[in-house]
């Protein structure tokens, strides 16, 4: 019979584990990365003509080097920007100076003629027409221009205010048609809402602003 071994003293195991725990606590970070997602336009093509957009469909936001904000040529404040953008996008009274709209069915017809149209987009437009009462889709584009001397903090505050306007419009649309907020929708439903309210922020080629 084998000699019986004495038990190994395990009381220091806890200390070792604590040591490891402290090491990981110190070297790791809990923070999640978050921020404003944006897709940059592809490099400017010199040969291609700039797409012509009707004057009324552009909402111009300027920030100068002193971090002052001008909305459609008028000096304004970031706090007003979200409301003004929503008014521009939804254009509830069909004002002639605010963004024009077109029915989802009109867009659908145009897309059907386009050979490059995505199958999924066609399906989603069909859904919009059949189930959401053929909503009017805005043609509005928010154009954001800033100076090289603009403070980054101001720029982000303005970006944020504009995105907030789009998010609020999407939330309203989602609640009306699906009874939930945009974040609670499935990704397929979110794609449909994104078609109905496209995030159209255009950033001009850099230039200086007085």
């Amino acid at each position, binding site marked *: 019979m084998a000699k019986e071994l004495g038990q190994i003293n*395990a*009381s220091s*195991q*806890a200390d070792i*584990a*604590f040591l*490891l*725990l402290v090491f*990981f*606590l110190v*070297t*790791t*970070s*809990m923070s*999640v*990365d*978050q*921020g*404003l*997602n*944006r*897709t*940059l*336009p*592809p*490099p400017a093509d010199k040969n291609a003509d700039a797409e012509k957009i009707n004057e009324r469909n552009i909402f111009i936001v300027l920030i100068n080097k002193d971090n002052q904000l001008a909305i459609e040529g008028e000096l304004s404040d*970031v*706090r007003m920007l979200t409301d003004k953008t929503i008014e521009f996008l939804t254009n509830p009274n069909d004002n002639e100076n605010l963004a024009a709209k077109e029915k989802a069915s009109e867009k659908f017809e145009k897309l059907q003629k386009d050979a490059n149209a995505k199958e999924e987009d066609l399906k989603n437009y069909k859904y919009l027409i059949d189930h959401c009462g053929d909503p009017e889709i805005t043609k509005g584009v928010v154009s954001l221009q*800033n*100076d*090289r*001397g*603009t*403070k*980054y*903090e101001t*720029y*982000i*505050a303005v*970006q*944020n205010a504009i*995105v*907030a306007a789009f*998010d609020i419009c999407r939330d309203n649309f989602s609640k009306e048609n699906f009874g939930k907020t945009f974040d609670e929708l499935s990704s397929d439903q979110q794609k449909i809402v994104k078609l109905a309210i496209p995030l159209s922020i255009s950033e001009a080629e*850099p230039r200086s602003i007085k």
Partner: protein
Amino acid sequence: MSKFKKSSGGRKMAALSTASLPDIVFMLLFFFMSVTSMKETEYKVKIKLPQATEVKKLEQKSLVSYIYVGAPLQAFQAKYGTEPRIQLNDKISELFDIADYVESERSSRDENDAQRLTYSLKVDSDAKMGIVTDIKQELRKVQALKINYSTLKVERKDLY
């Protein structure tokens, strides 16, 4: 007299068994190992992120590359000055290094993931837009179009 006074003839309390303590600590250890991630790099620039309300989370950390912009820390000011600079990986870099950085970030991932890379711009709130615009133009040149302006999340009512 007192309730707490040890009566000499009373029963001895059994020692509390600590045999399960290592298990508990290991459990904690694994929890922290799984929910946290290693610090990406050591900052050489000072970054105070701006605040925003409409933030989206970056889902897959493996598909994110970071570009830091801010004034160099005190220890590096003698060498790099006090104006905001770009930091790529753990080096303070120049604008023209960005194309190489994007290339190396892409080649370290497989082809599929390389297309889905997001470039997270961690920019100090006091930096000027000039340097950010330059970075954006550089990124456009190399077709790195998905970016994320890194911000802290605040509630709408707290911002203004």
